[in-house]
């Protein structure tokens, strides 16, 4: 296969990730959000596999395996378990309407392209279109975290942001040194466990995981 085909597969995966991120911003059911995150991670894994195959770089295969095992299988399973434990699959209300959110996402995608534009010149790697998409996913993930008032959807926003980031590192520098990647994965898995623990604790303390109840501390 030649370069064009690899580039196309990579671009398709990246675009799918972006679309799923936008879907996640609009979806209001916890279980659906978790599923979307799993699919998001699956596309990231496929992308990692293609990059690994193209560059024939053994350590990206490891990244691919870790993504598949941790982000597609384990973390969604753990989040499902947390949702079960605190009995929330109800609709979470979003303070901004769906059309409003869509509009903001569009603006953020433009922002991603705007920020990435001057940098693409400097990059020589095969997925240079992906930087803009990666930044857009990061921005939308952050927006999701800011706009949601629910501990679990905030953490899904964080995970989506992190996936967007991995998309970026994968395509602009074919990942990071292996030891760093291991460390980052380790941190993410610990973070998810701690988020689970605290979501449980918030639910017990406030009888809800709606973080808008947590407004006691202010000046």
């Amino acid at each position, binding site marked *: 296969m030649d370069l064009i085909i690899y580039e196309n597969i990579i671009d398709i995966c990246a675009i799918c990730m972006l679309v799923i991120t936008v879907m996640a911003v609009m979806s209001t059911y916890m279980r659906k959000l978790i599923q979307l995150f799993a699919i998001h991670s699956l596309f990231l894994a496929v992308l990692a596999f293609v990059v690994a195959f193209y560059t024939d770089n053994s350590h990206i295969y490891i990244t691919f395996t870790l993504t598949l095992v941790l982000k597609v299988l384990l973390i969604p399973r753990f989040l499902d378990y947390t949702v079960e434990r605190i009995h929330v699959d109800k609709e979470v209300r979003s303070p901004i309407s769906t059309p409003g959110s869509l509009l903001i996402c569009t603006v953020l995608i433009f922002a991603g392209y705007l*920020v990435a534009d001057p940098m693409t010149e400097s*990059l020589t790697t095969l997925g240079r279109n992906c930087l803009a998409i990666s930044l857009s996913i990061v921005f939308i993930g952050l927006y999701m975290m800011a706009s949601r008032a629910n501990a679990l959807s905030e953490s899904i926003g964080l995970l989506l942001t992190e996936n967007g980031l991995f998309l970026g590192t994968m395509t602009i520098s074919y990942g990071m040194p292996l030891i760093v990647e291991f460390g980052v994965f380790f941190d993410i898995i610990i*973070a998810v466990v701690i988020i689970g623990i605290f979501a449980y604790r918030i639910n017990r303390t406030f009888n809800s995981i709606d973080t808008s109840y947590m407004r006691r*501390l202010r000046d």
Partner: protein
Amino acid sequence: MIHGIEIVVLIPAAAALLCGLSRDERALSWITILAAGACLAAAAWTFWPVFSTGTALEYGMWYVDGLSALFLILTAAVTFAVALYSHGYLRFERAAGGLTLRAEKTYYISLNLFVTAMLCVFLVSSLGMIWIIIEATTLVSTFLVGFYRDEGSTEASWKYLIICSVGITLALLGISLLYASAIGVIGSVSSALDWPVLMSVAADLDPVLLKTAMALVIIGFGTKAGFAPMHTWLPDAHSQAPTPVSALLSAALLNCALYSIIRFYMISEIAIPGFASTLLLIFGIASVFVASMFILNAKELKRMLAYSSVEHIGLIAVGLGIGTTWSVFAALFMVVAHSLTKPILFFCAGNIIQGYGTKEMSAVRGLGKTMPYTAAMLTVGSLAIVGMPPFAVFTGEIALLYSAVSAGMWWLTILLVVLLIIIFAGFTGRVFPMLSGSAEAEVTEPEGPIRAAPLAILAVAMTAMGLFAPESVADGFRMIAESMIGGLA
């Protein structure tokens, strides 16, 4: 063979393990105190030569130069004071009831792991590893912030976890861009994120990538360091955490983030001079400004102290931002001065909160009669932190203002002086009324020499540093400042 570096890291890690195995409440705090003392001794013995001679220690994944040696010894010293204070603080909580062995165990295990992680930040060579460890410090200390499990501390720890994780995610994006620009120069090798390697090729790094990378890194680690406007987690976490932890967050954790920023700053100033320093200057001024406004209206003692940390981090960032040898010298001096002074105030706050049972400053009166020792220390600490002579913070602030004037930044000097006066008025105006008047309830000084000792040790240290900074110490500072700015010429 195990070198000094491994010993320094292994001591608190072993202490965490021992605390996990221990079944006795009293053993926990003694293990931690002994470990912190041993760790301080090992750190001083291993890293003092590095600090005073400036020759870097480098092997395997470790890299220690004068700058990291300074932060290492400082962190170990603060940890020792915190370990001593924790002993009496938790004993009081235990006596008051509501503290299980399990909770205390969690506290000491997390504390020791937290310290291990913070020490590692200053030891590793790879900037990627630094990122991982900084994130690890957040994860471990979330349990410390949420120690009391009530509404306030749950809210504070959640905010802390999420805001810092978001910040740090942005920093990772910045690091990956830096990595991308590094492999453009030296190829895809695993050492491409090692700081000495990056420094040696800094001049050839792609400036466009590096600019975005630096902006992301400063925003990301700046969140953790407490730069305004990303500081919102800081007052909550500092005020809701158990008081010894607040002291550790303020005097050690903020330094970790600051240290990471300095490492990136040094690379960036070679490749794109003036970019990182301008950003730091802006964030620094914003932090001092925001802190001054909140200090003026503070109601809770620990929140006010937290904002004072934001102020000092801001001043340090301004020092780095001015970017002359003098200003960097001042910034480093302020790092040490702040880390030695702030725990005194937090420890006093802990005594007051346990004695009076309230965090509100307006409910505390008659401190001079009820708690004479705490009152004296609070007076000394407050005067020191607002920058009165002869204490260390004063020396740092004067050096900073002097460097601003000699760099020709008059507007900056005037602005800083005005803000410092506002902070002086706000801080002393809240603290000193607590000393006089009469207490409504029966309140007594917490007893025990171990409880009093850390206050006295720190007070002596920071006064001595203000009065006569020893020649070798001043030389060490100068050497680091010159090596940081030497790269710029």
